[in-house]
């Protein structure tokens, strides 16, 4: 390939292998100066690996990187920094207990005899934040500021290092629609000032709105690069998944039956701050409907679910499940009364990663007479049961029931949990972010399972941060903001924009919604 100075950065024929997997297989990506270039692909398509290669975290087996047409070697983040490449990682790389300013200068400190000199740095950062409208409080600790401000801190980190090439790795996942709007504007400003931006995402709306060109990856392979102006969402999604994707979940009208779960005035104290994390939450979930609790991460959903399932204690309120008061019941007795729980964090709560798949399959029912005899485990029964679930729910793993859960892929781990919880056949399913981090195929599968459960007369309480999921799957939306239910919406009668206003606390309904 001949030199082409039109591009600031070129990654040519990059191949990166991990034991057993080709994470990047002959991928080419060319970034023009001053453009916003989107990198599109599903989870696991190889986007992050490619960026890690560019950033010097991984060394590719094959391929070449060029800056302004010149071949360069990037062996560490230091090299990337020297080439003025910077990145906002999906999980922010910030030190929580440091101040914003310390985080910005870390690794690029001014010193005098080894002592930190922060005065000039502060001036420079202040000027930058003025120039690009990136407002931060330099003396606040990172753990005390909002996610949006943390992201601005990350952007300032790049600008402070005079980076020319800015990589944004899934930057909108944690933001409200309004914050996303703001970020898009910031990115456009940066590009206008001559910065070149790589924007990694799988959200088609955002890519269509902000990017100039799109490069699509699928399963580690290069699919193509096209101008955004000349394409459509449908075409992009087909390129990303390799087949036409159903962007909408296919389901019938809900037929709500009797009340399964009633929550009245539930209040949960926070572990981090003095205020309540959940304030006076009341609602009812009926058989045969999917009720969704929507909201931005950190608005009390986690605490609410923990109080509902018994992992945490509520300070006030009443929970009734199938006619039984379970407000003070133990976790085990709640579950026996009729609640299954697909937890938010599959590694923390959902699985014992060092146990085998079959041991995990009976995690919620090992004590039932079917699986034990006078305290001795019936290994044969456990095996039969696990094999049945694996078969029925298509859970793939290396060694079937004896696979250590840790060695399974995230999608199959999640499928195992969904299988375990749905198979218990209980009237209420609490599903918290059931599709987080999964690829489209697994998402479709889990969504269809949840709809099937609804149609079988279960009450499904879905907690989700994904707007698409909320809009597509639910029959009723409750928006949670700062621990309160601020609105109840009908997904068929509302828009994403309106939902966003509720999630951001800009809009709220009065108390009259209680009637629902």
């Amino acid at each position: 390939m001949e030199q082409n100075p039109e591009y600031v950065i070129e990654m040519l024929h990059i191949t990166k292998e991990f034991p057993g997997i080709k994470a990047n297989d002959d991928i080419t990506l060319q970034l023009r100066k001053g453009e916003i270039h989107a990198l599109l692909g599903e989870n696991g398509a190889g986007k992050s690996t490619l960026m890690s290669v560019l950033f010097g975290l991984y060394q590719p087996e094959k391929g070449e990187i060029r800056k302004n047409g010149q071949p360069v070697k990037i062996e560490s983040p230091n090299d990337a920094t020297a080439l003025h490449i910077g990145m906002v990682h999906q999980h922010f790389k910030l030190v929580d207990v440091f101040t914003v300013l310390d985080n910005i200068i870390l690794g690029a400190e001014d010193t005098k005899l080894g002592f930190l000199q922060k005065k000039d740095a502060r001036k420079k950062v202040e000027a930058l934040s003025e120039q690009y409208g990136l407002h931060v409080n330099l003396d606040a600790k990172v753990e005390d500021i909002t996610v949006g401000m943390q992201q601005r801190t990350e952007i300032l980190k790049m600008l402070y290092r005079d980076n020319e090439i800015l990589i944004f790795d899934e930057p909108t996942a944690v933001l409200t629609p309004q914050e996303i709007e703001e970020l898009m504007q910031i990115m456009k400003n940066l590009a206008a000032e001559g910065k070149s931006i790589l924007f990694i995402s799988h959200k088609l709306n955002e890519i269509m709105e902000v990017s100039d060109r799109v490069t699509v990856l699928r399963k580690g392979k290069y699919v193509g690069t096209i101008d955004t102006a000349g394409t459509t969402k449908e075409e992009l999604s087909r390129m990303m998944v390799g087949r036409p994707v159903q962007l909408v979940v296919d389901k019938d009208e809900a037929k709500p039956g009797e009340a399964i779960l009633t929550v009245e005035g539930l209040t949960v104290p926070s572990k981090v701050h003095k205020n309540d994390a959940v304030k006076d939450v009341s609602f009812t979930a009926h058989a045969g409907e999917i009720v969704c609790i929507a909201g931005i991460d950190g608005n009390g959903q986690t605490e609410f679910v923990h109080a509902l399932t018994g992992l945490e204690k509520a300070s006030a309120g009443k929970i009734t499940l199938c006619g039984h008061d379970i407000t003070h019941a133990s976790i085990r007795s709640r579950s026996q009364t009729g609640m299954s729980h697909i937890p938010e964090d599959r590694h923390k709560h959902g699985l014992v990663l060092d146990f085998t798949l079959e041991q995990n399959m009976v995690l919620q029912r090992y004590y039932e007479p079917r699986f034990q005899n006078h305290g001795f485990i019936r290994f044969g029964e456990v095996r039969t049961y696990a094999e049945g679930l694996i078969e029925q729910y298509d859970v793939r793993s290396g060694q079937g029931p004896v696979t250590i859960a840790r060695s399974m892929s995230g999608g199959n781990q999640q499928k195992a949990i969904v299988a375990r919880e749905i198979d218990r056949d209980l009237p209420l399913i609490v599903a918290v972010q059931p599709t987080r981090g999964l690829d489209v195929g697994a998402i479709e599968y889990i969504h269809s399972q949840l709809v099937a459960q609804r149609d079988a007369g279960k009450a499904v309480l879905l907690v989700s941060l994904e707007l698409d999921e909320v809009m597509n799957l639910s029959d009723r939306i409750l928006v949670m903001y700062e621990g309160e239910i601020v609105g109840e919406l009908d997904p068929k009668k509302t828009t994403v924009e309106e939902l966003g206003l509720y999630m951001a606390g800009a809009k709220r309904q009065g108390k009259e919604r209680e009637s629902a």
Partner: protein
Amino acid sequence: MSFLIRQTLIYAVPLMIVALAGVFAERSGIINLALEGIMIFGAFVGVLFVRLVQQWGWFDVAKQMDNWVALQGFVLMTMAVAAILGAVFSLLLAFAAINLRADQTIGGTALNLMAPALVLFLIRLIANQNTLQMATGDAASWFMLKKTMFGFDKKAKLGFFASTFLDKVYLTTYVCIIVFIVLSIILYKTRFGLRLRSCGENPQAADSLGINVVKMRYAGVTISGALAGMGGFVYALTTANCASTGDVAGFGFLALAVMIFGNWKPLNIAGAALLFGLFKCIAAAYASLDINGDGVFLLANIGLNANFYRLLPYLVTLLVLAFTSKSSRAPKAEGIPYDKGQR
């Protein structure tokens, strides 16, 4: 009162410096459970060095001439030797924890078992008994600072300050305090300190900014080893008459507790060390403790069993841990091996 303060300082200073040793390791992300072992090793190395130098007669003349400046130089030299070998010994932990990504608790425990075993094995061979002592004389006659050295008359009645801080004290106390202050400043005010702390909180972030996590963690553990080795010798010199027995009576672990109680912050640690030093001092000297100088041995007269005072420091530690555990905040990444491949 002077006696009480002096005695408390004798226990508090090694605790403080060894707790700071823990801080440097943990702030870089490595749990250094081996503080106890490194102290034992440092104490042995220091005492052995003193003994050998005495046998070689390097300071015989100085001793005869009563050249106390030279003898204090001898103390400083020994502290340096104990620090250097303590650092070397700690490399065992660093290698296992950083390069081999070993379980840091087990690795530290191994060092804690290794130090007394090795030390006792050698002491037996060298001295044919279980204690290694100075070749001649005792700690007080060789190394203790006395009022006469500062030009006071032997019979002079000293003021409170001079009698507390200038008479019958060891130089090590002040060296340790200075080292403590200097290192605390380094930890908070320098580039090195900032980077070290970032490795203990979020090594992934540090790495993404081009900071060499492995190097930083080695630095943290090595500094930790040096401080603990030095602390071990100071402990042996000031509390055990410059003798090594393959034992520091759980002092390294107390230092860990002081570190946790002090929330990994030097200023709090200094305070916590004083508190614990007081309890250790009471445990060691309750019978001769004459608090207000009226000739009444208050604690001895209460008539509590000696064992009660002895177990007090450990019991207090446990209780203090119980009451402060909720508010304590360890470096986030401590104990987790860092792997570049992970993100």
